[in-house]
């Protein structure tokens, strides 16, 4: 029916829900059936993890080995995705690059959401003046250009994967804190938090054991969204020469310099690492989107 408007959700929801399968295999099958896009995303993530885990075994060459005899070689049987300006195998470097991407992505997303959620929950729990001050500080960070924060952190700490993780995590903290605080404000009014307080539990225990577990849904949503973003930001920083440094294999770094210079004669150098970035981030976003649909009742798309 062209241009028709979907009927109200409830009836469909009931018919679709069916009987949930038992066990994790059943749960997986349910997820694949109900959220095909999310399943594709999960598949891409698994592929990326597998690439990172087995790069040492699968990769046909040494990622750092230069071979000036086969510089800028086009894709062939020996070099499936061609070689770069130093004769390094592009496929090998993409395989090893998944390690950098996952390391930075997981590290930054973990740090950003951990500190962000702790600040958010604590701010909501204490309320009053503390909440007000924390919120004003968050406002300042919001108005602050993200890229400058990242550039400044890199300028202070220097380049390298650990510092790139910090640089990317820093701007995530206030964003996560704001979202988590909003959810935690509702949780604070729940009877079980009152009960915990009445039982004489300390602040730390109430925040960590009673409030935090109940705002896990927004935290998980933020964490998956941040993962993709962190991989993208790492690629941008490395592309600018401010992230991971040569000769480490990193996707953003592979697009830098020679890849652009020789784009016309050796386009494989510019095409494949970019594809790897896009596909990886695509997987995380697809999965994160479905997760959000599943966890956030307001956005539930029956």
């Amino acid at each position, binding site marked *: 029916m062209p241009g028709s408007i979907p009927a109200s959700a409830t009836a469909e929801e009931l018919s679709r829900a069916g009987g949930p399968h038992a066990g994790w295999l059943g749960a997986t099958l349910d997820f694949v059936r109900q959220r095909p896009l999310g399943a594709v995303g999960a598949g891409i993530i698994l592929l990326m993890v597998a690439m990172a885990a087995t790069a040492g075994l699968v990769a046909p060459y040494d990622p750092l080995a230069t071979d000036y005899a086969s510089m800028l070689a086009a894709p062939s049987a020996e070099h499936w995705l061609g070689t770069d300006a130093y004769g390094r195998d592009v496929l090998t470097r993409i395989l090893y690059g998944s390690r950098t991407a996952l390391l930075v992505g997981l590290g930054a997303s973990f740090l950003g959401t951990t500190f962000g959620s702790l600040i958010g929950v604590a701010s909501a729990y204490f309320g009053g003046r503390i909440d007000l001050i924390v919120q*004003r*500080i968050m406002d300042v960070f919001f108005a*602050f250009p993200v890229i400058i924060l990242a550039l400044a952190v890199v300028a202070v700490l220097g380049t390298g994967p650990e510092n790139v993780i910090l640089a990317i995590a820093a701007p995530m903290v206030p964003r996560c804190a704001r979202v988590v605080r909003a959810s935690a404000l509702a949780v604070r009014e729940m009877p079980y938090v009152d009960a915990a307080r009445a039982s004489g539990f300390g602040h730390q225990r109430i925040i960590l054991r009673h409030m935090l577990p109940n705002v896990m849904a927004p935290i998980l949503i933020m964490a998956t969204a941040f993962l*993709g973003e962190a991989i993208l930001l790492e690629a941008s920083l490395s592309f600018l020469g401010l992230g991971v440094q040569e000769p480490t294999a990193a996707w953003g770094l592979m697009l830098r310099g020679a890849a652009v210079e020789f784009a016309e004669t050796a386009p494989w150098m510019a095409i494949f690492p970019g594809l790897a970035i896009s596909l990886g981030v695509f997987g995380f976003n697809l999965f994160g989107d479905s997760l959000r649909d599943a966890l956030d009742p307001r956005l539930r798309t029956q």
Partner: protein
Amino acid sequence: MGYYILKRLLAMVPTLLGVAVLIFILLRVVPGDVVEARFLTQGSQFQSQELMDIERKKLGLDQPLWKQFTTWMAGLARFDFGLSMWTGSPITEEIKLRFALSLQLAIMASTIATLLAIPLGILAAVKQDTWVDYAVRVFSIAGLATPSFWLGILMILTMLIVFKWVPPMVFTPFWVDPWQNLVQLIWPALAVGYRYSAVGTRMMRSAMLEVLREDYIRTARAKGLWTKLILSRHALKNAILPVLTIISLEFAFLLGGLVVTEQVFNLNGLGMLFVEAIARRDYTLTQALVMLVATVFLLVNFFVDIAYAWLDPRIRYR
């Protein structure tokens, strides 16, 4: 309403002050200063410690931090950004042309993002859970996943091979040659706009889905109104606000954050200026740029809130 506007404008002052303190401290924590940075690039000229100290004195870097800060603040209060520490020319001069470029690019990219997001979001919502919906979602998530600088590289590569077109080295302002200017900026605007449309498309879709379940839509349908009329007159009006909000909030980022895209397309916008200013430890220029972007961000926020109150009679501010 007048009182609310005044209150909101005044609330910007402490935030901006916080931003100023933050960037001021950050820059002083970053090792090295402009004199050292210049010494590294120019070699012999400032070799001796005395010469470097003289140079620092000229720039006011020998003064205590609180004094440097108050001098800067006093200047800002009079809308005087001062001189660039690197070039010595007024910062307003340094920023002017680059600001024009970045502003135009941001406007073009936001326009493209809006034009893509609204129809695609509506389409996906109306055809929810069909292949059309899936296609739109994949298209938009792919946009979010593709680095716009890589999209830019691919665009340039394609045009190089097909049209033998190379991005020009010099920027042509709109008032000099509008056609040349648009040709130059349309590709970066498309690369960036596609990416930002993704956020808007997803927002449009979920807002539309929410609105389509409201009672007044059911009433309209029960009255037998055309689907098209329901969508355009009843649903769109109510679903479009959050989409416009999210696209406008990205605007401040587009203004100063397109560092990599600017590099790929050979554009000298604010983003590249940011990187240069930090690399040169040009304190005054970096500070001015951060304040500029922060102010734009706060103003856009402010206008969005005002627009909400004006467009949606349910929202009234006190």
